[in-house]
């Protein structure tokens, strides 16, 4: 097989993921695009391992390690996105501009968690409505 086929496919997949990371607004869609980029790298690793016939099989071993690290990354990333959503009522990356939480809904005491959650979600919904209007 010509080596250019997997290499070109990996390059195009990587650039697709790059577009997704830059253009998407929802944080979970950004994570999906990151997965696409990682998979493009995996395809390159496997193709070059098959081409070079390395005795250590470095390409395939690194591809397996990349898959494991990507699984860990997606777990942590989703936990962070869920925490951000719970605290701010939105997972849109270009609406998360503050490093500190300044919402008025955050002033509620922490033990009434359900009401705080609803209040934050309502605030987020109102913001979204006024953003789309």
């Amino acid at each position, binding site marked *: *097989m*010509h*080596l*250019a*086929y997997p*290499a*070109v*496919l990996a*390059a*195009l*997949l*990587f*650039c*697709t*993921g*790059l*577009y*997704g990371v*830059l*253009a998407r*607004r*929802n944080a*979970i*869609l950004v*994570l*999906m695009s990151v*997965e*696409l980029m990682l*998979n493009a790298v995996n*395809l390159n690793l*496997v*193709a070059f*391992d*098959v081409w070079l016939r390395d005795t*250590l*099989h470095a390409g*395939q071993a690194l*591809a*397996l390690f990349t*898959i*494991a690290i*990507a*699984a860990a*990354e*997606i777990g*942590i990333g*989703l*936990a*962070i*996105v*869920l*925490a951000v*959503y719970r605290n701010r009522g939105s997972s*849109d990356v270009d609406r998360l501009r503050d490093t500190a939480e300044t919402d008025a809904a955050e002033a509620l005491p*922490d*033990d009434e*968690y359900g009401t705080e959650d609803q209040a934050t*979600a309502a605030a987020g919904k109102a913001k*979204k409505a006024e*953003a789309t209007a």
Partner: protein
Amino acid sequence: MTLAATAAHSGFLSPTGVEIAFVLVGIATLGAALVTVTTKQLVHAALWLVVALGGLAVEYLLLTAEFIAWVQVLIYVGSVVVLLLFGLMLTKAPIGRSPDADSGNRWAALAVAAASAGALVWVVVDAFRTTWIDLDGPARGSTEATGSFLFRHWVLPFEALSVLLLAALVGAIVLSRKRGKEQS
């Protein structure tokens, strides 16, 4: 080796069956990936991601890396996409078309992606124009070969990776736990 392989193959105009299959599956994979990053329906993006990742598993099979192909199916199609769907549902993602799926800088993103795609494809095609993969002989990534090299040469990174996975597990639990009263 490269020259001998080049002489043995005839070129772009008479592709082998594996190459035809690779290109067809590659086109499907790339199309699914493009739909994933451009669709306005968030759940559909996750489902198209399944198609893209499954297509990549088929590409690994065509490159004789069986074990990685099945790991890809198990880890990515099996668990990562399910995690992403759970994430979409837990953040109350809208079902149906959402008009604000793309942010305002999508044209800049498109320019960056097109420029990098052009540069990468040009460099890669120029560099590997006369390079051929020899797919004959025993499979490079059968389960037997994978187990042998993984536990003969890569044991220490493997164990370090298991510690990293444990740390990620603990971190995800700590991050997603609701905050208790004593920590407020």
